[in-house]
């Protein structure tokens, strides 16, 4: 039986290894051919003229992800606080499944919703086409809510209740007890929720590509359109050939490196807890 478990465990490792090999085997030679500096710091993306600079897209991915965090993280964390200590049981029965449902909605549905609802609203507010960074940030902020809410809530719940009660007993208000004594205890859980949210936001594709405009220029305002790395890949994959195709795979390599950095920082934060966990075993 042990062998079966081992084989199953190897499946996912093998999948990651296969993806790594494919990406780097095709992407790295392409980066070398274009020139690493020209590729990462190039500001012009014009495949027909053999110009492959992805800096605008790297900037785009970072801006949009940051925007999503600014919108999603506070709402998510405060929702978790509500669910943790303020929510009546009857409301909880309604809110919790609603949050979980939000996680289950396919991203293309988010994209279409944003295209027909949020884009027209942004048109009126900003006097532009309505597609751009802010629109994408709002939608991504909504999409990462479930991740942040559930991770934060479980982190708050797993913190020792005596911190909260002790603080209340000393005369602190409920808010102060949560923010000043429970939050520090649950810090690593909350942070890892945020990092998972960043990972989800930077990797999101289908919703973003429909509402962000996809221009390969640096944005001037928060309403300007921009292209993310994921959008670049999905936009041009169908028709690309030759070096153009390899450049798209190279874009995926850069994205992959970003995701690895995010996951590494996640492991670092989780590292201490894991060590403790192993000791307790």
């Amino acid at each position, binding site marked *: 039986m042990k062998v079966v478990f081992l084989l199953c465990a190897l499946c996912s490792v093998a999948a990651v290894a296969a993806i790594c090999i494919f990406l780097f085997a095709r992407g790295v030679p392409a980066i070398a051919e274009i020139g690493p500096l020209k590729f990462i710091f190039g500001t012009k993306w*014009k*495949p*027909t003229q053999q110009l492959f600079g992805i800096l605008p897209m790297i900037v785009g991915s970072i801006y949009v992800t940051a925007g999503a965090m600014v919108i999603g993280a506070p709402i998510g964390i405060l929702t978790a606080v509500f669910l943790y200590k303020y929510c009546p049981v009857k409301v909880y029965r309604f809110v919790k499944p609603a949050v979980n449902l939000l996680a289950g909605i396919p991203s293309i549905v988010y994209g279409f919703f944003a*295209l*027909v609802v949020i*884009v*027209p609203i942004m*048109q*009126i*507010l*900003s*006097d*532009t*086409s*309505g*597609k751009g960074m802010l629109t994408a940030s709002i939608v991504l902020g909504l999409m990462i809510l479930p991740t942040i809410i559930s991770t934060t809530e479980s982190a708050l719940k797993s913190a020792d209740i005596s911190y909260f009660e002790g603080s209340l007993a000393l005369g602190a208000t409920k*808010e102060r007890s949560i923010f000043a004594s429970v939050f520090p205890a649950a810090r690593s859980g909350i942070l890892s929720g945020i990092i998972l949210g960043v990972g989800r936001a930077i990797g999101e594709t289908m919703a973003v*590509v*429909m509402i962000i*405009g*996809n*221009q*390969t*220029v640096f944005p001037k305002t928060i309403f300007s*359109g921009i*292209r993310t790395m994921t959008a670049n890949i*999905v*936009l*041009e994959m*169908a*028709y*690309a*050939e030759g070096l*153009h195709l390899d450049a798209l795979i190279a874009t995926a390599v850069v994205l992959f490196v970003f995701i690895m950095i995010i996951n590494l920082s996640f492991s670092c934060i989780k590292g201490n807890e894991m060590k403790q966990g192993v000791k307790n075993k």
Partner: protein
Amino acid sequence: MKKLIATVLMAAMLLTGLVSCSNSNDNQDGSISGEITVISREEGSGTRDAFVELFEIEEIYEVAEITEKTSVMLTSVAGNKRAIGYVSLGSISDEVKVLAVDGVNATAENVKNGTYKVSRNFNLAYKENGLSEVAKDFLKFVLSEEGQKIVEEEGYISVDTNEKYKASGLSGKISLAGSTSVGPVAEVLLEAYCELNPGVEFDVQQTGSSAGMTSTIEGACDIGMASRNLKDSEKETLTSATIAVDGIAVVVNVENTVEALTSEQIKNIFTGEITDWSEIVE
């Protein structure tokens, strides 16, 4: 805490109020003005290649929005008063307004008689030797009167033919790959062909023109579909047949007061030399 929240909310309301007041700048006679939202297809798309070539555009305006789907293009134009885009004539809907180009309306008739110049060929490409009997027979069907009638029914423009097709009774499998624009009409043609020859099975993959040509050259499929003319490198190994002609329609929002543009104006809009509708209305 509550005071803080109340202040933030008040500020937000005030801001929204200010923004919505400051943004009614339409002309008084009701004609369109404001910055043009240019929407284009992605680099490498057959529709974009044809559009750029026909209007002699060297480089699409870099602030143009890019989309990879016809449906997103239509929804965006339908929802934005100041947008302009282009789609295949076969896929236009009532949600958008089709502009006349150089005074000629974009209709199938005008494409066929050559007055509407913004059109391109739909091609099927194959290897001259090594094409299976059943695939050859299918090509014969497509280029017959029966096949071309279906092309017209699908909203595209037929090519001239006076061949009649007789069911051959062949059986086997035909696989097609390529353009997402040609794919839908090819599927309808294959279904009709299979009704005449019940022993035939087919398989259509919509992967894009260039990918379709590559897999035909590699032998992964029998026939490749392209919504553009073949490149020289592809012509070395492939033979092509034009099965239909498709117009490219320039579309704007239904509320737009502009009814027609010259090809010069369209070129200037898509290269970023004209950026405001008021430059055109005058």
